[in-house]
Every structure is written in C-alpha cells, then in structure tokens.
C-alpha cells in the first residue's frame, strides 16, 4: 500500500499565473510521456519481474513518479489560479477550460486525453526495461521542450528538477537491465523472455 505524505518532493511556488504555460506543461500529467504513464508503467511491470533488485527499482521509481505527477499538477494548479475569463479566452488554455474549467484532468498538450496505450507492460524483463529506458529519455526530451518555451524561473526550477530525475532513473534502469542480462542463461544469447520461457 501507499501512505500519503503532505509535502511535494520539490517545492513549487509560482507567483504569476500563466494559462499558456499551463496548456503546454499539462502534457507531463496526461501526455504520452507524462508522469501518470510513467507511474503506471513501472508499477504495472513489477509483478512479473523475476529479479528482486529490479522489482525494487520499479517499485521505488514508480512511487517517485506519483510524486512527480503531484508536482506537475501543482504547477498547473498554480499557473491557473485567479484567471479572468478574458485571460483564458486569449490563451491556448481556453479549449481545455471549456471541458474541465481549472480542474486537473490528464491530457496531452495537443488535447487528447490520457491513453494507457502510451505505455507498455509486456511481461518480459528485457522488453519492459528497454521500454523504461526509452520512456525516461522521452520524458527528458519533453522537459527539454518545455524549458525551450517557458521562461518563468518559478516554473523552470521544478521542471529542471523533474528533468534531472529522468536522467537518474535512466541510469538506474540501465543498471537493472545489466542485472537481468547477467542473469540470463548462457544459452539465451538473444534475450528471450527470462520469466516465462525458463531455460533449464
């Protein structure tokens, strides 16, 4: 189970609302490489993972992604506080506002809602860990793209923190993949499913 701690992993204190920034950054809540997908990817994959070190990595990174989802939501919430209808009307946030007002709903920056097809849980250690390595890089690219378009230092600080965590997670997943490959039977040179097709 999980226990809620009444704190963000990294502080979010945004003084100036900005609906245009909110409309871009929300992709890291509900977009294809967002934190909702990340948390569900890792927390779903761990049940079939055959090595305890890797289960630990999936559990702890999956849990951290839940905290990142909360940070992204905090950023969106604070960017959309006390907006006037005119401020919304003249922003890219207007289409989202029509459906969700300023409530948090997981969508991509391009407007489509969260889709579980944006992550995979294949029940194969090699396939899943390669998915995870790619996912961390894709999330890092998305944060880089956000930083290319966003200039408020109050917003950039938590976004830079989140970008940095993708790098660390990529590192840990790389070690996890090496762990799995070290455990492969020498006859399994091509990396077939080590948990289902056990080779005696």
């Amino acid at each position, binding site marked *: 189970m999980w226990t809620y*701690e*009444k704190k*963000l992993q990294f502080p979010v204190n945004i003084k100036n609302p900005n609906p245009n920034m909110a409309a871009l950054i929300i992709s890291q809540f509900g977009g294809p490489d967002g934190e909702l997908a990340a948390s569900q990817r890792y927390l779903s994959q761990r049940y079939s993972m055959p090595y305890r*070190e890797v289960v630990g*990595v999936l559990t702890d990174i999956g849990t951290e992604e839940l905290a990142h989802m909360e940070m992204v939501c905090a950023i969106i919430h604070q960017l959309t506080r006390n907006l006037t209808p005119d401020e919304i009307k003249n922003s890219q946030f207007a289409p989202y506002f029509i459906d969700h007002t300023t409530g948090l709903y997981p969508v991509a920056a391009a407007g489509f809602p969260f889709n579980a097809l944006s992550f995979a849980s294949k029940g194969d250690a090699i396939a899943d860990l390669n998915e995870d390595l790619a996912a961390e890089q894709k999330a890092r690219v998305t944060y880089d793209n956000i930083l290319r378009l966003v200039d408020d230092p109050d917003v950039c600080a938590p976004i830079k923190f989140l970008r940095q965590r993708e790098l660390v997670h990529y590192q840990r997943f790389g070690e996890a993949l090496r762990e799995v490959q070290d455990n492969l039977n020498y006859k399994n040179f091509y990396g077939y499913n080590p948990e289902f097709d056990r080779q005696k």
Partner: protein
Amino acid sequence: MANSNCGNLLYQVQMYGFVLDEARLYLDTHPDNQTALDYYRKYSELYRQAVAEYESSCGPLTANSASSTDGAKWRWIEGGWPWLGPND
C-alpha cells in the same frame, strides 16, 4: 501554517527526504555498497529529526501522526495542502 518558520522546517524535510529518495534507488541496484548503506542510515536519522521538528509545531505530515500531535481535534485536514501556491 501554524508559525512563520514552517516553510523552512518543511524545506528541511523535503531536502532530507530527497536525499533518501535518491539513495534508495542507488541501493536498489547496489545493495552491498557499505558507503551507500551508511549514507542512507545517517540521512534516515536526519530525516526523522526533521519530520519530528516539523510535526511538533506545524502539523502532521502523514495521517498516522495526526492522532498523536493533538488530542482535541483531527488535525490532518488543517493547514494547507502541498500543491497550494502563493495565490491560494
């Protein structure tokens, strides 16, 4: 926040909490690394102290500690939630 220092006390909790988040992932893939184990133990204690200091004057960080901080009232729902910003 119950007093003006709560922001600083919370920052201490976040700082030591993050140290543990980072060291935990490292230990998952390096479970025999004694330096990392000692580091984790050291910062677990500092985290515990920071949480105790925060909770004694600013309110519970988890629902588990909400009952022990004050007998007369359910304090878990008091104070701000973490996502609230300067304009809430």
